[in-house]
């Protein structure tokens, strides 16, 4: 690649041709403020905060979009640039609600940070002119406050291009333009799959989490028996949410924190992930043996399930009937667990801590009451838990390690890797291989299904039967596989699909994502999984116990009733 040479604020820099001014500036540690720019998304160049001066040009150019060329002389700090930038920022602020202190994004808002960075320490030169659109909290997962939107358009790309759900668009023109679902629809009436990827990229408080902390508080006050399960990926992202290094695994401290927060029983969703493998793996084998619908597709991701019900409504028979780990656990907690511990199931308040905003939608699905009660009463995200920990005054960094409560405090490594894309597939293969062949798997790692590539595939020889599998994450990638399934042209037997890019570890309920962080988190997941004593679902003693004591076997009638579900045609939403 040809190199080009330029100067930025008098400092020389040599970069590959095609490098943007922003990237070049980073190289020499010159900081250019940005707002609509996001490292994982396409350049939009619409906020214009990153404008810079280039010698010989009348117009300023946006550093995020403009490529460096040979001999270019760039100024990012001239009075002209600083003034233009500040005027732009003032214009944004003057059209923005001034209620930062009661905003969910207070302290983590990119606009707030920018205002501080650019020294907005004086009264605005323009009369504040805020809008008064209704706040849309109709979705169980996200809240949209159009009054705070700065029209950076990141959410548009995420929803329309990456997730291909297409709920958000620009309406109106000029000063009246706004980002919203079409035809004045409420979020709940749209095809939104609740993945929360939009809130992950919203720089301000325009799209935030639908916070349900109040419901936890109410249950606690009402003296309910507080039971909580924590999803595989949560132990890898909660510390990050509380300001620790990305990829810090804090399982024991997390249990301690939840105890302080009033949960009598802290259980590990890794266990029910193992249970899912037993049920789903058995279902797969039955489908293969009995000529059932193939490919079978995983159903543990509620964002994906709703996407399938909506956009591929005729393909839902491909979905495994197995419930997600969250919902399986919910059903078990209010039945077997309650019996075992002699608890009144009606008095149990069953909470899950999830990396996922769609889990809120899933646990509210009407059919999820196999136990005779709401299987899971409340799904909270990592973001909410972090707020609760902070607000309670818990010094998370200094907490001691506490083990999970038993009997369901034991999970296998296979359950643990559900956190990352390819994890469910790998866990299933570990178990299915050993069950079918009766042999011990030499190498547990199926690396072909790991990693960030959008669609991954491999095949496994199950003692004569070659099983072809595929993994997709991000719904745009899911479409690539599903279009073939819908045409009857898919050759796979088993497919794992996760709505969020990167899988649950990149889920919408986590601290703010970037691909780099998702990679680090994923590495941490696999790193610690290697060290776990049990790494296959079927070898988890708690699993053996439940099939011994409570369930006659995977896919038995009792399992079907408690641990399996059915799907709905949601085509009409479109």
């Amino acid at each position, binding site marked *: 690649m040809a190199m080009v040479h330029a100067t930025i604020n008098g400092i020389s820099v040599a970069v590959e041709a095609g490098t943007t001014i922003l990237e070049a500036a980073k190289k020499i540690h010159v900081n250019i403020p940005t707002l609509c720019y996001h490292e994982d998304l396409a350049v939009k*160049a619409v906020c*214009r905060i990153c404008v810079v001066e280039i010698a010989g040009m*009348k117009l300023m150019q946006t550093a995020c979009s403009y*490529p460096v060329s040979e001999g270019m002389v760039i100024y990012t700090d001239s009075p002209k640039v600083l003034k233009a930038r500040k*005027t732009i920022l003032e214009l944004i602020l003057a059209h923005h609600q001034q209620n930062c202190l009661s905003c969910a994004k207070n302290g983590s808002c990119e606009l707030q940070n920018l205002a501080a960075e650019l020294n907005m320490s004086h009264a605005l*030169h323009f009369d504040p002119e805020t809008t008064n659109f209704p706040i849309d909290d109709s979705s169980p997962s996200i809240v949209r406050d159009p009054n705070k939107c*700065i*029209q950076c358009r990141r959410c548009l790309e995420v929803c329309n291009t990456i997730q291909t759900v297409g709920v958000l668009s620009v309406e109106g*023109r000029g000063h009246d333009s706004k980002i919203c679902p079409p035809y004045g629809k409420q979020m709940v009436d749209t095809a939104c799959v609740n993945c929360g990827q939009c809130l992950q990229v919203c720089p301000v408080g325009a799209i935030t989490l639908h916070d349900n902390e109040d419901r936890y508080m109410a249950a606690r006050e009402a003296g309910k028996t507080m039971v909580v399960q924590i999803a595989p990926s949560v132990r890898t992202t909660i510390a990050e949410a509380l300001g620790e290094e990305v990829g810090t695994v804090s399982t024991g401290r997390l249990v301690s924190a939840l105890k302080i927060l009033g949960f009598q029983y802290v259980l590990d969703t890794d266990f029910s992930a193992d249970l899912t493998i037993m049920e789903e793996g058995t279902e797969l084998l039955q489908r293969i043996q009995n000529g059932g619908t193939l490919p079978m597709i995983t159903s543990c991701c509620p964002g994906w399930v709703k996407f399938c019900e909506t956009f591929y409504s005729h393909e839902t028979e491909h979905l495994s009937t197995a419930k997600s780990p969250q919902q399986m656990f919910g059903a078990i907690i209010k039945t077997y667990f309650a019996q075992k511990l002699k608890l009144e199931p009606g008095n149990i308040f069953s909470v899950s801590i999830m990396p996922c905003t769609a889990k809120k939608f899933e646990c509210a699905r009407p059919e999820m009451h196999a136990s005779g009660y709401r299987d899971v009463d409340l799904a909270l995200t990592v973001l909410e838990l972090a707020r609760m920990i902070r607000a309670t005054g818990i010094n998370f960094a200094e907490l001691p390690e506490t083990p999970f409560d038993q009997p369901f405090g034991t999970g296998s490594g296979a359950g643990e890797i559900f956190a990352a894309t390819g994890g469910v597939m790998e866990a299933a293969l570990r178990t299915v291989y050993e069950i079918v062949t009766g042999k011990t798997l030499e190498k547990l790692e199926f690396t072909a299904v790991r990693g960030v590539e959008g669609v991954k595939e491999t095949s496994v020889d199950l003692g004569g039967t070659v099983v072809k599998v595929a993994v997709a994450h991000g719904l745009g990638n899911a479409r690539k596989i599903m279009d073939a399934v819908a045409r009857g042209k898919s050759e796979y037997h088993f497919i794992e699909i996760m709505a969020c890019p990167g899988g649950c570890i990149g889920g919408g309920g986590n601290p703010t994502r970037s691909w780099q962080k998702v990679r680090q988190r994923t590495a941490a997941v696999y790193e610690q999984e290697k060290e776990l004593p049990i790494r296959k679902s079927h070898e988890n003693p708690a699993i053996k116990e439940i099939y011994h004591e409570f369930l006659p076997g995977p896919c038995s009638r009792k399992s079907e009733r408690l641990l399996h579900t059915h799907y709905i045609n949601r085509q009409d939403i479109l």
Partner: protein
Amino acid sequence: MEQMKVLLRNQGKPDMEDAKAYIATGGYDGLKRALEMDGAEIIEELKKSGLRGRGGAGFPTWLKLKFAFDTESAEKYIVCNADEGEPGTNKDRVLMSCDPHSLLEGMVIAGRAIGAHVGYIYLRAEYPQVRPILQRAIDSAYTCHALGKHIFGSDFEFDISIRSGAGAYVCGEETALFESIEGKRGEPRYKPPFPGVHGLFGKPTALNNVETLANISHIFRNGAIWFAGIGTKGSTGTKLFTVAGNVAHRGVYEFPMGINLKALIYENCGGIADGKGLLAVQTGGSSGPFIRPDQIDIPLDIDFVAASGGRLGCGTVFVIDDSNCILDIVRNTQDFFAYESCGQCTPCREGTIRVAQIVDKICRGDGSMVDVRALQELIDMLRVAPLCGLGHSSAVPIASVLQNFMPEVEKHLDGDACVWCNTQKGGRS
């Protein structure tokens, strides 16, 4: 000065939609000549002619074609900008109506130059009456082998079809126009990449104004030397001027480049209507500056007008008589920009509305020097920071009023309400 009818040479003649009638006037001779040349030679000829864009910026046409010529691609496009969205401008409509084949011919030659085989005419949605004229001309050109495969027996092929948008002003901006043709919301793209590299459908594209393209056909019929001999050194050829507002004889006129503005108004257009005096003239469309009567003794030449802080733009001359108030006029213009901003980028979305609000405040007599300073801050930012040309030139009108009509502005400040402004509706109310 006498009008010089080149572009309008067939005005008033019957059946000019018919390719045969056009050919009878020497039409398509230019194309036949161009078919003997290769792309580089055509571009060289255009360079010699000195032709510059008639759509606004006055960009050398040969250079624009060269960008697309230099980019390797099996697919390239010629796009004709017939969006004519400038308020009060209708020279493209007149040209397309009276001599549609001159446009088609120019497009084919441009296609030949860059190696494109498809051309689109992006026609202003509010010109439904022009569409059948253009369509009949296109059909007739196919019949006479001026379009389609084997044009005039050569191995060159070229197709033209018409597209229309939904009527937003910003769709006249080249990249917004591409988005609109592609079926998306008409919003400008950031540049680079430029259209010559990444244009319509991501392919190298040359986009030109109707008048620019029509000029190409005349250049090839009469020769680059002939064309370069008309007009001024830096602005060759003739130019269509739409003279609008309070003049006795409004209309579209064709003159050699460099005609004197004052002479145009007073000699060719019969001066100010109803015997009134002249208040101001706006050149170059709604994003052009307002100048005072003592500033109009200037040649209408692209570089001269630019050097004096204005722009020739699409050649619109908007004449305002002294029964108006300049603040009310500029209020109207700034409302236009606030209304037409696509809203994509912050400076323009948030800035144009603020400019309009402050100008209105001044009109109502509620303004002060503090507001004038806020305006200046916005003007400085808008000139350099927005994403597209609409934003960049959106504050030119008010900037020119602050510069050329400051005494008028001061009369409105600090409670001195202007009776005229307050009785006018104002664009936004």
